[in-house]
């Protein structure tokens, strides 16, 4: 069969456009972050400066609270991701494998949590956490982020569980496993891609969250990266190089995590789509 090469070229060109559009803003961030201050304005629209420097990074790391922010963000995002994944694995399993009367009430409640502006919760949550000593604390942030991310993560995990045949659990039970052992030894290992996807998704979300981090935390000691960056931006609003260096550093962990898990995300949604 003879095929015209034109569609292939068009396809590759379109792909190229998308890649360029997706990466250009990030590239620009990188470019400004390594441009020496004296070249910033004279070479404003050049794609790459004639001279590069790591000074901005060095300054941010040495003369700002960024290492603290970084550490706080890693703690908060990692703990949130782990706790959410554990909770969502259990509840996603319940939604996937049991039919109980309240199931649809639970699903409706979880959908409702996706519908309203979270801003509305700031003051009430502050009032609830404050007497417990959980404001201005990383634990408080982890609790709040966990709750925010559990509904979506539950749906994600449910679609992964739906993709695993029930036969396997039944075979395990006949082989002598309790329901919980079948869940732990047979189902969970098969859901590893789903778990990876959920971990990555939640990590990225917790890493990025700004609003509640801003409202529940004051002072640098417990501030996370987004808050730090934002205060940095308002404090040093003239030094673009330093801001962008900080931005690049904020981006790296989330981007790494995402690159690792993005294909599982497609896989997980496919599993759900096949069933639905």
């Amino acid at each position, binding site marked *: 069969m003879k095929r015209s090469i034109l569609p292939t070229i068009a396809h590759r060109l379109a792909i190229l456009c998308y890649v360029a559009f997706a990466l250009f803003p990030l590239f620009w961030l990188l470019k400004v972050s390594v441009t020496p201050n004296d070249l910033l304005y004279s070479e404003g629209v050049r794609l790459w400066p004639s001279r590069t420097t790591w000074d901005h990074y060095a300054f941010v790391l040495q003369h700002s609270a960024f290492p603290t922010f970084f550490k706080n963000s890693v703690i908060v995002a990692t703990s949130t991701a782990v706790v959410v994944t554990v909770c969502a694995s259990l509840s996603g399993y319940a939604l996937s494998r049991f039919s109980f009367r309240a199931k649809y009430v639970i699903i409706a409640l979880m959908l409702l949590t996706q519908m309203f502006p979270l801003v509305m919760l700031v003051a009430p949550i502050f009032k609830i956490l404050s007497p417990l000593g959980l404001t201005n604390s990383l634990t408080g942030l982890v609790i709040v982020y966990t709750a925010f991310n559990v509904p979506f993560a539950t749906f994600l995990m449910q679609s992964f569980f739906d993709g695993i*045949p029930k*036969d*396997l659990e*039944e*075979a*395990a*039970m*006949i*082989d*002598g*496993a*309790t329901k919980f*052992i079948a869940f732990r030894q*047979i189902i969970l*290992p*098969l859901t590893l891609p789903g778990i990876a996807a959920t971990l990555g998704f939640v990590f990225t979300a917790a890493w990025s969250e700004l609003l509640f981090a801003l409202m529940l935390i004051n002072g640098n000691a417990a501030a996370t990266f987004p808050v730090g960056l934002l205060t940095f931006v308002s404090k040093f609003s003239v030094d673009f190089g330093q801001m962008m260096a900080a931005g690049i550093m904020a981006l790296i962990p989330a981007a790494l995590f995402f690159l690792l898990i993005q294909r599982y995300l497609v896989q997980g949604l496919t599993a759900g789509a096949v069933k639905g």
Partner: protein
Amino acid sequence: MASIQIEKLEKSYGHVSVLHGVDLNIEDGEFIVLVGPSGCGKSTLLRMIAGLEDVSRGEIRIAGNRVNDLHPKDRDIAMVFQSYALYPHMTVAQNMSYSLRLRKIAKEKIAAAVSAAASKLGLDPLLERRPKALSGGQRQRVAMGRAIVRQPKAFLFDEPLSNLDARLREQMRAEIKKMHGDLKATSIYVTHDQIEAMTLADRIVAMHGGVVQQVGSPLELYDRPANLFVAGFIGSPGMNFLAATYSAGSVILANGTRIALETVPALAPGESVTLGIRPEHVVVVNDGSGMQATVELVEPTGFGIILHLSLHGLPFKVFTLDRGALNYGSQISVRFPSQYLHLFDSSEERVA
């Protein structure tokens, strides 16, 4: 090994009833085949014995002990699934040893049991592979191996061969039979394929609409089907049925032909009945003495020939080993030997 008793077993989902009081006594070491069309309740019955479905009413006893409320893991039974249900993340050896490992059996004993089962099934070279790297037939063998490794009280098979191609199915069928001969294990086997049922079973349980229709040896079901359903389900090609009226020791077909019966059933004259005869029992005669029929279609199977006839406008099948049948004209005549006739009354029960 153990016997299994099932008493007045019922299953319903809400208001939908799928099993209506099943009674069954399975002897120690017996090979029982549950057969019937899809939706007849045979798989539900098997899953209830396994403990995968709750019992709505009635009782199941394994080795004399009531197991209604026992978790599957405590029933000491093994099951081969239609999908095989092999654990994808475990090797063949791990799949086979999983049940023993859960029971915390000593490592050496596990290794011995696995290698014994593997050599019995010819799985030795595959022990370190994952299910993904196996062919359909090999997966089926692993599923069997996983079951026999444990020496359970009973084996349950849920249509284990239906995902295999015809040749492999035949081969595995023979192997299952041979294995049962060796192990003498109580086995319950669910299938919709009557050939599997006939070849494997010590006793067949024919089910339809959640009710047991007949229990008996394969030949009993073939020779003396208890009702129209069993008569039609067992045998291939299926039995021919003709509407008729009873009249003093003989039946009169719709076209007026009178056929004498060997035994006299307890029927009132004039009662409407159904006459059954298997295609392989119909005799083709060339002397014009039988009933006239038109040949509509000739299907040679190699082994024999299936003739599709029209008998006074009704479809009718004949199976014959005579190759001469290929050259019959469009008109033939057929005769029904009286010893092969089956007679069913208006409530579809066998009367002769």
